[in-house]
């Protein structure tokens, strides 16, 4: 009986979460004349798969894809490395000024983008980074407050006995971090990886402000090109949106097991 209730609830909620996505998908498969019918037609009478090709080739999306991949992969690497180190420092050490620094870290999360945008632009301009992918990659190598905070919270729930034991065995902090904390942290790192990947993949304002030349554009900027000052190309937006959410979705699907089952796994298997 309890199972029935749970499954019904899950099915109902799934429908709720899926419906708009379903609509996105069917819209990108509809012919232009069917697009605007009311009452809405849920299933297109014929599947226009050529919509995808049409939208994809209407702009140099292959190039945008390449740029997005470069930005996402490189910044992901930097983010995982730096955020994990910093989080460990905050989670496991007591040091002078720690709490103040941590509050400062939290505070930097709250800075509204609107005001730091122009100074940042000036700085990157001074560095000659405007119209390169660097402003989208390099800052990731210095950690992001959201992820540091997340990883810190995670590390703090881990028991310290392992580290104590290793310290007694004579391991230095870097060894402890790499051999003990990192494996235990894997689920949280995968979580951070997924979040960062999505942020980077879907980032719109960063590329918008720092990139000028179309040959440097990322996918989201390409997507925004369907939305002009005076009109919106619905077909294009829907088709490309569907396409560009496939890679992160696939990665999420593969990663989620590690996120939620990995944690329990480390505890029980050992």
């Amino acid at each position, binding site marked *: 009986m309890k199972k029935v209730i749970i499954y019904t609830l899950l099915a109902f909620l799934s429908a709720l979460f899926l419906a708009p996505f379903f609509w996105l998908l069917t819209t990108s498969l509809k012919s232009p004349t069917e697009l605007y019918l009311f009452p809405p037609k849920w299933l297109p009478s014929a599947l226009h798969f050529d919509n995808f090709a049409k939208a994809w080739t209407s702009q140099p999306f292959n190039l945008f894809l390449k740029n997005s991949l470069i930005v996402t992969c490189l910044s992901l690497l930097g983010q995982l490395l730096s955020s994990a180190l910093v989080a460990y420092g905050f989670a496991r050490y007591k040091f002078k000024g720690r709490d103040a620094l941590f509050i400062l870290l939290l505070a930097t999360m709250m800075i509204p983008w609107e005001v730091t945008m122009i100074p940042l632009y*000036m700085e990157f*301009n001074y560095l000659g980074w405007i*119209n390169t992918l660097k402003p989208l990659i390099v800052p990731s190598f210095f950690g992001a407050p959201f992820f540091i905070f997340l990883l810190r919270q995670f590390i703090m729930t881990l028991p310290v006995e392992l580290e104590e034991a290793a310290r007694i065995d004579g391991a230095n902090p870097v060894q402890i971090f790499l051999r003990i904390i990192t494996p235990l942290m894997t689920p949280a790192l995968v979580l951070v990886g997924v979040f960062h990947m999505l942020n980077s993949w879907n980032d719109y304002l960063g590329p918008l402000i720092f990139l000028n030349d*179309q040959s440097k554009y990322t996918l989201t900027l390409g997507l925004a090109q369907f*939305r002009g000052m005076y009109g*919106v190309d619905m077909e294009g937006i829907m088709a490309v949106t569907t396409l560009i959410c496939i890679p992160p979705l696939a990665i999420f699907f593969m990663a989620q097991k590690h996120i939620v089952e990995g944690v329990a796994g480390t505890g029980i298997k050992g």
Partner: protein
Amino acid sequence: MKKSAMLLTAIMMVIVLALSACGGGGNSEGSKDQNKGNTNTQNEGKDGTGNATIRFATWDTGEALKIQQEIAKKFEAAHPGIKVQVEPYGDGFDQKLAAGFGASNPPDVMYMWDFPTYYKSLEPLDGFVEKDETLQIDDFYPGLFAYNKVEGNLYGLPAGFTTRVFYYNKKLFDDAGIPYPQDGWSWDDMKAIAQKLTDKSKKQYGIGVRADNDTYDLQGFVWSNGSSLISDDGKAIEGYMNSKETAEAIGVLGQAVKEGYGVLVGGKNQQSGDDIFKAGKIAMWESGIWPLEGFKEAGIDVGTVEPPVFPGKDVKGVLAQSAVSIAKDSKHKEAAWEFVKFYVSEEAIKMRTADLPIRISIVEEKGFKEDALYKPFYTMLERSSNAPAFLLHPNWSQINRNLSVAVEAIMLGNNPQEMLDQAVKESEKFLK
């Protein structure tokens, strides 16, 4: 003042960089890139008039953008040594421009409409225009220049424009056996037609009304009723923005919704009226040239007509222009001017399709004045002689903030006069 502020910034940046250099050692790479950046963006023009890269910022997207890229290629072919980098900012145009100007790194040539805000950073073009005969300035529609002048100086050349007309869905008219509207029709005619074409069971309405009107577009109606949003000398809004005529002109739209023969739709936001017109659910829709191609593609048999008149008064219209300007900070103004000139030349204007040609010769060549679909756009051009409010007062955008809320309230059924009175009251302080 600006100088000391810039100095302050520079000092701060140096501190920041020094600190980050102490910590990281990534500095050497940074300075290398800096040199590279400089050669890319600034020094090229200095080697001589020859090798320059012109950055051209546009808000156009889709097909219109492709045409611009083709124009740029043609220009490059005709001007060896000058490269044009087309930078499409689309919807993010304002932010990009703010960042570019704010950091003194603006594009060399850019689309422009908001001259009162940006003219201080734009290059006056009068000198270029005077000495360059090949421009054929007489071939432009003269009315267009009024929008691009601030304090008597010309800051941009028109590249394309649109006026606003009423679109109507011929099929819906035919089905109901109603004759198509003709130029000179009145708002009462509009109401009578819209009522007949409304069938709520089919969710079909006579006219679509934007929930989020741009007050700029509404000025045409206000002028048509003999009023304006601000006095001609820009000194008063009391008695203009809240005059009986203004309230009536904006009120007709709110009334259409209230009495059920109009339906609220999105403009740019929400589900747009263009899309609902395509779905055949609204019979009449007021807009510029932009959605016309889309209507044809969606298979709508569409007609155009001038906006309705208020009894005994002349119809007036407002026009939206895409002008091209040169940044004052541009390092290669001569090359930029060559590009601007080419961009508004007969050859380039002929290639543009997303808006209307600004050259009289091209309009005649394409026969637009005889084409029933395009004719109203040009007759409305002749009726677009009033100066829009944003050119008349430097704080207009602030005043407009209050006016926009009043207009929204009117569309939702509130009393037009009361809402406009309130907007005037809240805005008086910006006039000082």
